[in-house]
């Protein structure tokens, strides 16, 4: 176990280093001149040159990358070109909102996805099953900006049940969480359905029924824990899905998280922010996968990590 963890940590660090290198190259190749961008349209050539020198933008590529890495090791993500603020602070100030949204989305996808999956499994091959599975298919395949705008239009604009975007109260959270969670709910319902059907066929379920346990006792005490296993492994991977989802969902709902930060930075080619958000998301995804791998053997002792 210890050796496995160490190996995975080293592996993860290498992945992150690779990602930082690739992102840096890509952003370096963009034909926009950051010094000119900071200087603005009225600047003299002298001003532009001064800025270039002060930021080290006149250095060769490998030196710039090395400077960035050195800063990174000291926890310094640089200063935004246009926001004029430490990137670390920008991300830190927006992280709570994003984590909250992700928590809401996980609750939504588990609640909706698992319920749909279980009901579909119990009503296998009926009209209920079919319609639930069609619904889950819609959830999986609809683009999030469409779902988001639809929910916003129906529940906020027309019915007035929820605020039109924004952040602060529980009511602000419902629609964005739902939008972000629906995609996952679609996946979970399909996985839960097949996993449940699989488990219900097993001998120990028949034994449990035979020894006189109630139907709900069998379902929640024996079938669910076993059916949940493959689903849990998914939650770690979910973080990757969320990371792409938050950019869209946060922009639609005006949610002040790092997805919105990334979107604004991309539109304005604010390279330090794009770089910072990419690294933080990569870190989250790597961490998510890592944790998912660690959790599975705790739930299922049959799986051993080597």
């Amino acid at each position, binding site marked *: 176990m210890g050796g496995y963890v160490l190996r995975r940590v080293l592996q993860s660090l290498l992945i992150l280093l690779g990602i930082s290198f690739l992102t840096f190259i890509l952003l370096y190749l963009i034909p926009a001149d950051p010094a000119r961008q900071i200087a603005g349209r009225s600047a003299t*050539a002298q001003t532009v040159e001064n800025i270039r020198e002060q930021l080290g933008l006149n250095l060769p590529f490998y030196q710039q990358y090395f400077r960035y890495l050195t800063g990174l090791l000291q926890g310094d993500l640089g200063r935004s070109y246009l926001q004029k603020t430490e990137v670390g602070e920008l991300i830190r100030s927006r992280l709570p909102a994003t984590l909250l949204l992700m928590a809401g989305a996980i609750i939504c996808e588990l609640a909706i996805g698992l319920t749909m999956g279980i009901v579909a499994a119990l009503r296998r091959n009926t009209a209920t099953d079919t319609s639930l599975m069609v619904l889950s298919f819609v959830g999986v395949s609809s683009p999030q900006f469409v779902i988001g705008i639809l929910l916003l239009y129906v529940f906020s*604009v027309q019915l007035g049940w929820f605020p039109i975007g924004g952040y602060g109260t529980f009511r602000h959270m419902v629609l964005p969480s739902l939008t972000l969670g629906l995609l996952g709910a679609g996946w979970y319902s399909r996985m839960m359905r097949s996993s449940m059907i699989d488990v219900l066929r097993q001998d120990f379920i028949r034994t449990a029924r035979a020894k006189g346990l109630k139907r709900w006792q069998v379902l929640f005490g024996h079938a669910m824990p076993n059916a949940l296993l493959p689903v849990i492994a998914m939650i770690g991977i979910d973080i990757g899905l969320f990371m792409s989802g938050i950019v869209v969902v946060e922009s639609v709902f005006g949610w002040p998280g790092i997805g919105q930060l990334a979107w604004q930075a991309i539109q304005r080619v604010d390279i330090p922010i794009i770089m910072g958000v990419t690294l933080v998301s990569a870190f989250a995804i790597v961490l998510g996968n890592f944790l998912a791998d660690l959790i599975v053997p705790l739930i299922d002792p049959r799986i051993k990590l080597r």
Partner: protein
Amino acid sequence: MNRTLLAGAAALLAATALTPAQADDIKQGGSMIVTYKDDVSTLDPAIGYDWQNWSMIKSLFDGLMDYEPGTTNLMNDLAEDYTISDDGKVFTFKLREGVKFHNGRELTAEDVKYSLDRVTNPETQSPGAGFFGSIKGFDAVAAGDADSLEGVTVVDPYTVKIELSRPDATFLHVMAINFSSIVPKEAVEEWGADFGKHPVGSGAFSLEEWTLGQRLVFKRNDDYWRAGVPKLDEITFEVGQEPIVALLRLQRGEADIPGDGIPPAKFLEVAEDPQYKDLIIEGGQLHTGYVTMNVKMPPFDKPEVRKAVNMAINKDRIVRIINGRAVPANQPLPPTMPGYDTNYEGYAYDPEAAKALLAEAGVGDGFETELYVYNTDPNPRIAQAIQADLAAIGIKAEIKALAQANVIAAGGEPDQAPMIWSGGMAWIADFPDPSNFYGPILGCAGAVKGGWNWSWYCNEELDALATAADSMTDPSQKAEREEAWRKIFIAVMDDAAWAPVFHEQRFTMRSERLGGPDAIFVDPVHIPVNYDYVWAKDVQ
């Protein structure tokens, strides 16, 4: 044209209506909510240079000069009075006494000197440093050889003398732009690079709260020296809201002003709704949208080809594409700018004559070229209309839709972008003076690598005329100076360095609970809204 004149007339009327006697009748108090899409970048007046923070900075800080609300007329701000020497090279400003910064300290002439030294210091990285080029000693400071401007001297605590190295008729305007706002040294040194997040000025409002990515709260400066200003107790700026969401919230009474304006997609719907019709405010802008033709890249080196492009573009149709939110242009200057030539007719839409001109230039069979354009709506659609117009006279233009920074970078190279549609990046004047529409975008100084003169048009004769015009500093020469500028811009059109397409009109909305003259909601200088003079009806 008519609409612009009307809007201009309305602005004038509104401004005269805001005489102090009447303004005093309005009770102070109340609050409003203004929404924006992007987070505010910085509130440091030496750095801030965008749509959102421009007017916020004006509310937090004061400079020596300002403009009458809703107009382009200069008025004294922190300067109680000023004198200009006969040669136009020495400005002596007398400061108001008793003006206090938000930290309670009195503002003196030392602060004026410090602020000008700071904004021109290369370490500050101010995008506006170049505006101060006429102050004596600027070159030494810009090069890092001096810490202080030789031309700025503190005569006594309430008098500051500014010497120029050359006569500069625009200097009072320069003293009115945000970059010359007065900042207190101790606060700048305390916060360093983060001064823009913790601004301390002497303006009508002070910053009360800033939650990154969410909201800013401005609180009324009770000690503000101008009596009866500002009207509101508090302004909340909510950021991160798409314009369409902002509009919906306004319609539901949750917000008062959509800072980014009415989104184009919703424009017709709102404009035709009787419920909202009266809440929409239209105003002119010191803006021109144009197509540049790089005179260094054949065949645009031939004036006939550039004229042909001018004649080929159907400007009326392009104005229709953007739902009439603009007026067609025939010259670089916008109609509300001094020096605009109302008699000039420009190049009329005439594809046949355009074809004849192409034949004259030896490219009668047409040619292939590229049209660079900023990739956000409506710019690609406008580019397509231009593409179709050009195709009609045999010019095959391939559209290159790119991110803003990339188009700007391409324009700043001598051999990269043969044509650029300026939309979304186009020139909005920094101050209401014609010279601001020449130097950086049509003069030789802008035709350098990384410059904004994307036509690379450089006419030394016109440059000399421009310098001469800006040397007419005597107020009695105002008309003569305007005439000089008028001739310069018409000469630019004779060479057809640009194809001017339209002047954008600005449309915004206010909630029913807000009062104030229409002109301050589309203020030509306090862009987008002059917050200091907005009042709340619910406290009257």
